[in-house]
């Protein structure tokens, strides 16, 4: 029971796949806290679009889907939004865990992105979990010009659970198959974070994101998640560069759950997201 409780309260923060090339925040459960807090045994760790290092082995498999609508209305293409749908599943075999997800971004019927995310992870000596991820992206224009770009990435995640906090470092967007076009490939991103175990004030996390290519390369995000009751919680986060504020509502009910979140950008407006999962 004590071990189970420990596993329950250990929070992880590590490689957070954005499941997209340049999304402003992660989708699904992590949207409201801007990816600062990942519950391994909650839906955050089980999301098919985060690495397989994080999976709740009490479930054999699970499915999840979500949608994000980005930013507010603009003066042009007013009735067309930018949205991403995400979906996928995970499977826990005796020797390894697997995750597979698909995403599709549509930008007002002018531009699209499609991605496939595959991750395989394993627990090592019960000390840490490791996984390897491969992502493939296909982007293009919907103008019948046939203009398409493909990009391939590889990544790895390490999770180090400690007694009171979790530490993590990851490297994202390490491109192995370049588009061949200057400016079309995503910039290398380094993330480092720490967050506490659950305490009377909830869980608190800090995430530092570094993109060396940017003029102002460092981004700082502070997040909080608080469980009102065991099955219902709220979470939120504030980040800079760019400034964003996220809030969300999460719930778990038996074998299913979901979340609804809002993220505000002071200029670009509100983004809305919703996701559901089912596990067996």
């Amino acid at each position, binding site marked *: 029971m004590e071990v189970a409780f420990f596993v329950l309260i250990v929070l992880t923060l590590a490689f957070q796949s954005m499941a997209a090339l*340049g999304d*402003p925040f992660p989708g699904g459960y992590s949207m409201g806290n801007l990816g600062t807090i990942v519950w391994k045994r909650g839906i955050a760790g089980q999301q098919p679009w985060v690495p397989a290092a994080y999976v709740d082995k009490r479930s054999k498999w699970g499915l999840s889907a979500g949608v994000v609508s*980005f930013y507010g209305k603009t*003066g*042009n293409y007013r009735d067309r939004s930018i949205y991403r749908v995400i979906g996928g599943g995970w499977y826990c075999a005796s020797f390894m865990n697997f995750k597979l997800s698909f995403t599709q971004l549509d930008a007002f019927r002018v531009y699209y*992105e499609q991605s496939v995310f595959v991750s395989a992870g394993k627990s090592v000596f019960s000390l840490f979990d490791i996984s390897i991820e491969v992502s493939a992206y296909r982007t293009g*224009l919907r103008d019948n010009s046939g203009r398409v770009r493909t990009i391939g990435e590889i990544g790895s995640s390490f999770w180090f659970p400690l007694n009171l906090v979790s530490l993590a470092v990851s490297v994202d967007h390490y491109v192995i198959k370049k588009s061949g076009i200057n400016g079309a490939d*995503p910039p290398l991103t380094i993330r480092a974070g720490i967050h506490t175990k659950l305490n009377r004030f909830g869980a608190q996390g800090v995430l530092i994101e570094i993109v060396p290519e940017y003029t102002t390369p460092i981004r700082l995000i502070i997040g909080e998640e608080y469980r009102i009751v065991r099955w219902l919680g709220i979470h939120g986060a504030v980040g800079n560069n760019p400034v*964003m504020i996220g809030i969300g509502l999460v719930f778990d009910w038996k074998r299913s759950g979901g979340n609804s979140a809002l993220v505000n950008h002071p200029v670009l407006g509100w983004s809305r997201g919703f996701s559901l999962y089912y596990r067996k």
Partner: protein
Amino acid sequence: MNQFFCFQIQSLNYRVYSLIIFLLSITGYTQNVIITEIYRDPPGSETALGGGASHEFIEITNLGCDTFSLKNLLITDGVDTDSLIMWDNVIFSHQECFYSQDFLLPGQTALILDPDYSKAVQENHAPPFSIEKGTVLLRVDDRDLGNGLAVDDGIVLYRGDKKNVLEIIANASDGPVYLDNPVPGKISLSNSKNREGFSVTPYMFLFDSVHFSYKIDTLSPGKFDELNNGLIAQWKFCSVDINNQQALPCSVLCLRVNDNAGLSVPWCLESVSGLETHIVDKGIMRFGNQKGVLEFDLPLDNVDYYLTIDTNRWYIDISSVWSPAASIVISEIFPKATQNEPEWIELFNQSSKSINLKNWMLGNSEDTIEIIGRDFYLESSQYVVITKNTKSLNARYLGLNSAIEPFVWHTLNNTSDTIMLLNPQSVLIDIICYNKKWFNSWPSGSLERIKFLESGCDSLLWEPALITSPGMPNGAQFYRLVDKPFFDIGPVPFTPDNDGKDDYLQISLKLPLSYSIVSLAIFSFNGRMVYEVNDIKQGVFLWNGKERNGKPVINGPIFVAAELKYPKGTMKLLKKGVLWR
């Protein structure tokens, strides 16, 4: 004796008044032959062959009705006297001139050239100017014409010899000349400031003694421009209080060359506004002793007037004494001179009539300058640029077709100043102000006036130009005179791949006068501001898809956001697009 009386004009009977004018006018111009053009200062070194003094000339025209003998004629500048002789050898490319003719027919012109002129033509393998066909060519019996004409030399044409003046034929001098001795001392013609490459020509000689001014356009040796199919018409306006009158009384004197008979010809005065023409007055003009007189009133209206006598037509310019209020406005200014671009002020004629800028003034209460001392007609809806240096400005703007360089320049302040435009009667026509504090950013370039019909000292009516446009319409007028904010981007998608197509994102911003821009920025899909426009100007801004540090922005959706300030607060405008390479 040549005073022109206009007093009590309103009370006099028209016929009586005309008679008085006629009687007075016939005592005015009395010379049959006059000096009609003097070219004293050709470009280049004075001693250069193929330039300088070898290109000097004096033109005389017989305006009488009798043939004029060219024998025993001399010219003097008061210091040196030269006999005039026929040009004996045919000059290359002037074969159609007359060389051995010792008389001038009525209306015919003779040209007194420097003896080195033919050598100069041979040296250059081309004549420096064309000479009107049928011109009688003369030269002096000395090495140089007038021993080389100085820029302020006056000339007297007389009959006699080198020691005695028997008869003064014509003179070009600052005042009347009475000579017994041909070399009493220098005779000056200096009332016009010298301009190299320009000649001087007489004007208004039918009314009074002959006055000279610089010619508006190019040289016209052998052709007296005032002579139009054997007619010369000149007019004067009465000096009355035009502020309290609806019409401007005008008197016209007409000289008919080669006709001493008392002819009558029809005349007609028309007003022209755009494509509309109306007859203002018409009648029959009677000539006596070569001269005829006309009297009519010109309604003070925003129109152009044309006088037709017989088959000849003249433009009657009243802008020297009256111009519509705010007829000419200061439309664009360039106070911040650079090494390649001098200061300049652009004027725009927003009236429907041509306006003569002669003797108009620019400046402020402490210092004003004359824009131009000769006739310069600014046509309706046309621009002219007044600049410190036309040569530099023309080199900077190759398409610039109308620029004036005043003799003296009124230096503009780089940060704030007031500029007034005054007509020849010193009536304030326009006043503008500028102050760099009015603008968020004005690093360089010109300031454009947005509205011409409102005060030129309203800070909202000036805008740093997106594209400096001397002599052309102001871009700000197009993007500021809108009822509500206009904000747009395109193309979508835009593809900055240097293939020549859709390589730039065009951001168009047009704001009403009460609006101003607080910020204009471009955001990438991840919400990061990738480009902020520092030098914010309205109009069109082009973005090349790169950040300020030159790094290309990643493919995907992008956003352009403008924050505006208006009297009730602030507002944000947001547009989205797609960047694709």
